[in-house]
């Protein structure tokens, strides 16, 4: 629940970069919450694929719970992004979101390792996925800025 709220908060903060209408933030929050579910799917799937022992002992639900628990690390980053953007008026959503995605994905890999998976392998997969997610984030932000600049 907290994780969903965190993704929704980041979506709401991102929305004004797409559209200036006030209701855009609500739409952004919904998209953010959906993105939070969709973006974690490849990470869950990869960790499920490489952890035969964990898969056998805990099933897919065990991996799903571990990834969710690890990605709770994203929550403080999202909250601080809200504080920075609304409280301090900084334009700092991208570094906060990128750091949060990488920290969350790395922690998710470690949580799966804690269930009995290979420590280094799961950590590498988590960090690599986090890196991939943060690149996707940056590309989206750049595309939005370019669309605004030329639109």
């Amino acid at each position, binding site marked *: 629940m*907290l994780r969903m709220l965190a993704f929704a908060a980041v979506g709401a903060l991102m929305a004004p970069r797409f559209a200036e209408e006030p209701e855009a933030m609500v739409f952004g929050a919904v998209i953010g919450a959906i993105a939070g579910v969709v973006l974690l799917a490849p990470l869950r799937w990869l960790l499920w694929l490489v952890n035969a022992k964990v898969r056998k002992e805990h099933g897919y639900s065990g991996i799903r719970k571990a990834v969710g*628990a690890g990605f*709770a*690390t994203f*929550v*403080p*980053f999202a*909250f*601080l992004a809200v*504080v*920075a953007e609304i*409280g*301090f008026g*900084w334009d*700092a959503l991208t*570094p*906060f979101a990128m*750091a*949060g995605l990488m*920290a969350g994905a*790395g*922690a998710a890999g*470690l949580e799966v390792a804690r269930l009995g998976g290979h*420590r280094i392998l799961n*950590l590498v997969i988590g*960090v690599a996925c986090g890196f991939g997610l943060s690149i996707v984030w940056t590309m989206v932000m750049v595309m939005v800025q370019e669309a605004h600049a030329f639109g």
Partner: protein
Amino acid sequence: MADPRTVLTNYIDDLAWPAALAVPALAFGLLFLQSGLDLDRSGASDGIAGLALLGVLLGVVVVPVTALVAWILVLPFDRSRSLGWAVRAFALAYSPALIYGLCGLIANIVLGWNTAVAFGVTGVLWAISPLFAALREMSGDRRRLSLVLATVVGAAVLAVWAVAVGA
């Protein structure tokens, strides 16, 4: 940065207090030094060296204070970790901030970039993950409590920096 909990549980007991506190002192010193350089570039600096010294001072003071408050708050849940352990863990949590600070200072001086937010604040953000790990150790693995406390500590540190440099 990737696996802070293992580092905390395996190596922290061998570390002396002063060595641990040198990490946030240097990390905050570098963050405030970059803030001073950025402000100086925009013509709004009150003194670069003064800001850097303030950063060192805040690093030595703020981190043990936040560790003390967090340690007191988790006492009802778990007493297995001492106050000294908490201070050392909180101090070491700023190791990524120190690395980011060094990289930021190089970019600031060599390339002339404004790096206080891009490198400095990002480095402070990377402290959240180890803080979360330390708080989980201190609270008997109470995840939600640790999450809330890590968030509050992160927000407090950012607020201190923002107020001190007028960001």
